[in-house]
């Protein structure tokens, strides 16, 4: 565990690009836009993750980790922790502005998009789960690819987000997923929990498959 802690520290100190912080603010700021697809704001952190992985290649971080007293598995686990950390900060940073948006735009009677609520977080978590599976896994396969898998991951995030918006706004009986009244928020909690479990399970499986690929890879 100590090695993973040190690797996370190394990522924070040497690898994560300072521009990543901007994406936290972008996500938080975009939550304030009225009647807007709210899964788009948290999308930008995926760009931050792609930049971090590109910086890793530029800095030859994998080779450097190879000379440190750590295992390949610990390196992958530390990266997964960093990715989850970045995504969770993005979501948490958006919560205050989402609450503010909910108060500010409560007078919009018929919002065409999902209002700031737990379903937005659920769709973002599902999008992250899919994007992480594609981006992180590819980064530890034979050729350590970053850009193409990242673009695919981002596209999948958008498609999932778009599908959720469409599903919730177009289908009858889904009104409780669109709004943010106290009663509806309570009904949304199980969906949030399920998506969180899917996100964590996807993270775990991605980590396992990335470790298996990385063990065979040549650095």
């Amino acid at each position: 565990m100590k090695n993973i802690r040190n690797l996370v520290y190394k990522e924070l100190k040497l690898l994560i690009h300072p521009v990543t912080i901007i994406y936290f603010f972008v996500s938080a700021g975009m939550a304030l836009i009225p009647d807007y697809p709210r899964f788009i704001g948290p999308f930008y952190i995926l760009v931050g993750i792609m930049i971090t992985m590109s910086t890793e290649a530029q800095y030859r971080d994998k080779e450097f980790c190879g000379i440190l007293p750590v295992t390949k598995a610990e390196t992958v686990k530390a990266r997964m922790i960093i990715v989850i950390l970045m995504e969770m900060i993005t979501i948490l940073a958006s919560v205050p502005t989402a609450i503010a948006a909910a108060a500010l735009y409560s007078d919009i009677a018929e919002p065409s998009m999902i209002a700031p609520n737990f379903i937005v977080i659920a769709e973002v978590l599902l999008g992250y789960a899919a994007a992480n599976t594609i981006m992180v896994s590819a980064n530890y396969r034979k050729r350590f690819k970053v850009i193409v898998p990242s673009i695919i991951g981002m596209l999948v995030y958008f498609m999932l987000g778009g599908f959720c918006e469409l599903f919730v706004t177009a289908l009858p009986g889904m009104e409780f997923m669109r709004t943010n009244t106290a009663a509806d928020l309570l009904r949304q909690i199980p969906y949030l929990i399920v998506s969180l479990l899917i996100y964590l399970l996807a993270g775990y499986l991605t980590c396992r498959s990335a470790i298996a690929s990385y063990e065979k890879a040549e650095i």
Partner: protein
Amino acid sequence: MALLEVKNVCKSFEAFELHDVSFEIEPGYIVGFIGRNGAGKTTTIKSILNLTKPDAGTVRFMGRNMCEHESDCKQQLGIVLGEFNYYSDKKLKSIAKVVSRFYSNWSYETYCNYSKLFSLDENKRVKELSAGMKVKFALALALSHDAKLLILDEPTSGLDPVSRNELMDVFRSIVSDGEHSILFSTQITSDLDKVADYVIYIKQGKIIMSGDRESIINGFRLIQGSSDELTPTLKDILIGYNENAFGFTGLIHEEDIQHAEGLRIAKADIESIMLFNEETRKERTMI
């Protein structure tokens, strides 16, 4: 017990193969690892460090399997893979601070001493360092946690002769207690002549020579003579030779020295042994 035991390590790539590489390193010795570019030195080192997964064979460090105890083994290893080309935009002090956290035996004092010896400016960024200074920084990091074995891939490349000489002194002082060892690959064979106790010579992925430096050197002789003295019989016996307008120079096994009667005989050095062994044809034509 050997510090490092490499046994029958094999690794195949499309265009290159490492065949049954085996050697041992005992505590208290400096081992030079030589061979041409692409001969397999870096692949061997990467296989030892588990950066490349060998197809077969085992690597044991202090009696423990390197793959199974990678993290613990690397605590006792100081590793330099050429010049320090990582985190080019970061300051040396930031990198050193991060690295120090990984080693239980890290000594900040030792690190400062090497920084001073190598004239490293802690506030500089990696990209601002010359090639030689990058090597020195990598060495300072590798030497600061009392590693039992230093594995250094081309540590002297890019260093000026004075710095190389200083480094050789550092190497000697590290192994002087009889507990630490150094394995270093190099193209600069004169460094081996200065400090290496043992030499491992790899050619096309195979270890073709391995032993203590004196025995290896004493196993060969350089002979010189006029072109007339280079008879067909002698040509067959010579490991390699080159001919020019003034005569020839060749390398011969010590046990064949009776065939060189009447010729000038000199002690061989690592460079000439490597040069003549690397000839694909026996004859080298001087341009």
